[in-house]
């Protein structure tokens, strides 16, 4: 028995919205989805007319929907933004090379400029080469740290005012949960913010226009609109710990869809009591990027790779930063500890 759209009452409903429980037809769903993103953008004043906005584009569903919706809303509401796609090529054969082909097609389909920055040109290492050295245990740490900085570097080259990323409500809820599980109070406090102010030189302000959009709706939006996106899992396998958090969240969501919004709400309203020690943001003395240590994570990871000591950036080795900066040799015991590949 077909269900009628609860909004227009005319057409057949095609999905049940997890956020509201409403059954909508395609047209009413497209409109509701786009309007909610617009409301998010307006309420948080994410952009100003005349700004150049870089869209972090991976070719996956979230960033493809983000690029599409940003283009639609920029035209519908005259945001007056200049939109540019920025992609990071991590150097993963059989995965990123294919997804970058998707981004290149999106560039044509949406008629937006595209900039690709690669790990190889920025760091001298592809993920393929990194995995060869560090194995499959901590590779996601390298990839995540490098990607964040690579997007900033690409944004600086293009002189964009802001970067927006495709993080959705499920991602934000998952991050809240991950930060609780790791006891990372500093990140827990800031991870639900919809935008970050410029944290210093070399860091472009970021925002998440899809912060309140459910993953299910993003997938169905892409599917119904027949958007061209890439949906293969990274060949270097997902971060196992994050995988548990993700599964847990999806299990909860299947019983009670509002779980996602509820966790975000909890994260947004947490306050950290005074006296909790927080890292002080400074800048990396080697590359100038934001860092709470003498060296930023990216420089430490890179130093480890270049010295053949992959453990250097995994775990806490802050006391070695001075030695690295002043190019002092490490003791044999220090080297031995850092050479072994790590489990965690």
């Amino acid at each position, binding site marked *: 028995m077909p*269900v009628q759209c609860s909004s227009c009452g005319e057409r057949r409903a*095609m*999905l049940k919205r997890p956020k509201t429980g409403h*059954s909508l037809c395609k047209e009413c769903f497209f409109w509701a989805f786009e309007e909610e993103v617009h409301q998010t953008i307006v309420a948080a004043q994410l952009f100003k007319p005349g700004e150049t906005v870089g869209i972090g584009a991976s070719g*996956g569903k979230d960033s493809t929907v983000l690029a599409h919706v940003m283009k639609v809303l920029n035209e519908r509401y005259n945001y007056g933004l200049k939109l540019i796609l920025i992609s990071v090529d991590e150097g993963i054969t059989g995965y990123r090379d294919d997804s970058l082909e998707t981004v290149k097609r999106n560039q044509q389909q949406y008629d937006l400029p595209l900039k690709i920055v690669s790990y190889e040109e920025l760091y001298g290492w592809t993920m393929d080469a990194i995995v060869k050295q560090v194995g499959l245990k901590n590779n996601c740490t390298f990839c995540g740290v490098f990607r964040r900085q690579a997007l900033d570097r690409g944004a600086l080259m293009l002189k964009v005012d802001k970067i927006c990323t495709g993080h959705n409500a499920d991602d934000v809820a998952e991050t809240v949960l991950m930060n609780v599980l790791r006891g990372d109070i500093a990140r827990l406090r800031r991870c639900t913010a919809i935008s970050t102010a410029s944290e210093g030189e070399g860091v472009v302000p970021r925002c998440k226009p899809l912060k309140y959009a459910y993953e299910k709706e*993003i997938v169905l939006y892409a599917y119904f609109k027949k958007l061209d996106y890439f949906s293969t899992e990274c060949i270097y396998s997902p971060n196992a710990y994050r995988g548990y958090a993700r599964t847990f969240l*999806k299990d909860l*969501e299947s019983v009670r869809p509002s779980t996602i919004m509820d966790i975000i709400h909890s994260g947004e309203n947490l306050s950290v009591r005074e006296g909790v020690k927080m890292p002080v943001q400074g800048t990396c003395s080697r590359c100038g990027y934001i860092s709470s240590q003498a060296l930023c994570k990216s420089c430490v990871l890179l130093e480890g790779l270049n010295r053949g000591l992959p453990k250097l950036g995994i775990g806490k080795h802050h006391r070695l930063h001075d030695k690295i900066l002043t190019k002092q040799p490490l003791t044999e015991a220090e080297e031995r500890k850092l050479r072994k590949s790590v489990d965690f």
Partner: protein
Amino acid sequence: MESPLPLQSLRVGGAELLFDGVKEHQVTLPSQSEPWDMKQLLVWIQRNLLKERPELFVQGDSVRPGILVLINDADWELMGELEYQLQDQDNVVFISTLHGG
């Protein structure tokens, strides 16, 4: 006795690695005494199409949470989910959202 039931197509987006890398499957369900429903289809898929790590696709008698199901392009949550009775030339799509985007 019902006659064999040909589906128009059965697709697995984002989960094809569990299906020998094959995204689109041509499926004709064998004849059986009662009509085919989604619950039985999932059992059939598990026995005949799933090549590895079935726990990444099914959980209990349903799909794993995070896998979206569309029947003739409509959300199966509007169609009765597991109880939906399959029709000749139905189009079934599974979309996994369990990895990053």
